[in-house]
């Protein structure tokens, strides 16, 4: 199953998005900051990709993040829709069901680090509650977290508890001060800096402060250890083209004129392999 996330930056990018969906054969498309109506998006994607795209049933719709898919209509059911997150129950035709968490956290421009950490902690607790209700932890979270992989909201046990190493995440959970916290694995760490074949991040910001990272990886996918057997790091890509449209400017930075200020990311989940004896 191919999944795509893109923060469209409130720009009219429906055509390059459709090209991207067609080229990737994306099954699930998670969007933030889109300008077109959901019905326009589903119609355009359906037409271009030559298969029908749906938005999940109206109930529990998030304000800032939306999930579209071309699985059978009933395969994606909303579980929770909040101000900054949309949690879906995905029941694929083949393989075991999993939880998909679409995320679009508030921007740091209007918040402090402590605010972001608190938001991550709230999100983490919400995910754990939904997992308890679902009876499993086959969960993947994808979206614009508006913080980097090393932000304490992403790293801390009470936050997303997302670590850079598969081997560490495969230990399932960690006990801190007598309480147990499950891990996420965060492949975004491997995409930081120049050694990655893709750009050094998904968002570029030139700051005038003393500490300036310039490149940020705000757009991330976090995977629970229960899904690691069907998740390959090689499948994660930061995309620099959408159809024929280049998404980078001449300096190799996200081109807000031709695309969004965020680069899209895609990844695969081989959920067809999730049988009772695999996971």
């Amino acid at each position, binding site marked *: 199953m191919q999944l795509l996330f893109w923060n469209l930056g409130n720009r009219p990018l429906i055509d390059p998005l459709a090209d991207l969906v067609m080229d990737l*054969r994306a099954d699930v498309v998670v969007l933030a900051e889109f300008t077109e109506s959901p019905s326009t998006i589903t119609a355009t994607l359906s037409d271009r990709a030559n*298969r*029908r795209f749906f938005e999940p049933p109206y109930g529990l719709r998030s304000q800032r993040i939306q999930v579209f898919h*071309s*699985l*059978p*209509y009933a395969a994606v059911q909303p579980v929770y829709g909040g101000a900054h997150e949309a949690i879906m129950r995905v029941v*694929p*035709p*083949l393989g075991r069901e999993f939880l998909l968490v679409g995320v679009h956290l508030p921007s740091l421009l209007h918040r402090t680090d402590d605010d972001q950490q608190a938001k991550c902690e709230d999100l983490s607790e919400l995910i754990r509650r939904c997992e308890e209700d679902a009876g499993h932890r086959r969960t993947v979270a994808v979206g614009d977290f508006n913080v980097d992989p090393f932000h304490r909201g992403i790293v801390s046990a009470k936050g997303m508890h997302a670590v850079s190493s598969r081997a560490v995440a495969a230990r399932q959970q960690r006990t801190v001060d007598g309480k147990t916290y499950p891990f996420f694995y965060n492949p975004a760490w491997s995409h930081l800096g120049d050694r990655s074949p893709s750009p050094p991040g998904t968002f570029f910001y030139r700051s005038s402060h003393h500490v300036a990272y310039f490149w940020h990886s705000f757009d991330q996918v976090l995977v629970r250890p229960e899904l690691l057997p069907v998740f390959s790091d090689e499948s994660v890509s930061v995309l620099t083209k959408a159809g024929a449209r280049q998404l980078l400017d001449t300096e190799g930075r996200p081109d807000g004129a031709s695309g969004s200020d965020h680069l899209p990311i895609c990844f695969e989940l*081989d959920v*067809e*392999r999730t*049988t009772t004896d*695999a996971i």
Partner: protein
Amino acid sequence: MPSKDLWNRLSTEAQDFVPPSKILKEYADSLTEATNGLLVGWVDSLGKVDMMTHTFVVRVPALNNYTFAVLRIRHPLTGYPVSLYPELAAAQPAFAGSEEELRANLEDALREPKVQSAMSALLAQAATIS
């Protein structure tokens, strides 16, 4: 001026050679026929440098054209040896040095219990909707 018979030998040799993709397509088509089109098998081919990769994909029209990959085969431009990589079953890759071996490997891979149960599950869902 090129010789008039320069390419004659090539076409003669090609007639004796059954490309691995064609063999895979036979199996894909047999699935479509056996399920009366409820499951549609097709072969997605990709050539890169000097290796060809062909994926046996199943499409389910009744499930909004849900598609998944069953297995992949890879081979050099010369055709053999062919490596077969199961996508559904967690099995080791198999290798074929001839058409006969490839057919035997494909039979084994497609008879894997996980592949058969996946096909049955999709067929049941498709039949319910159709």
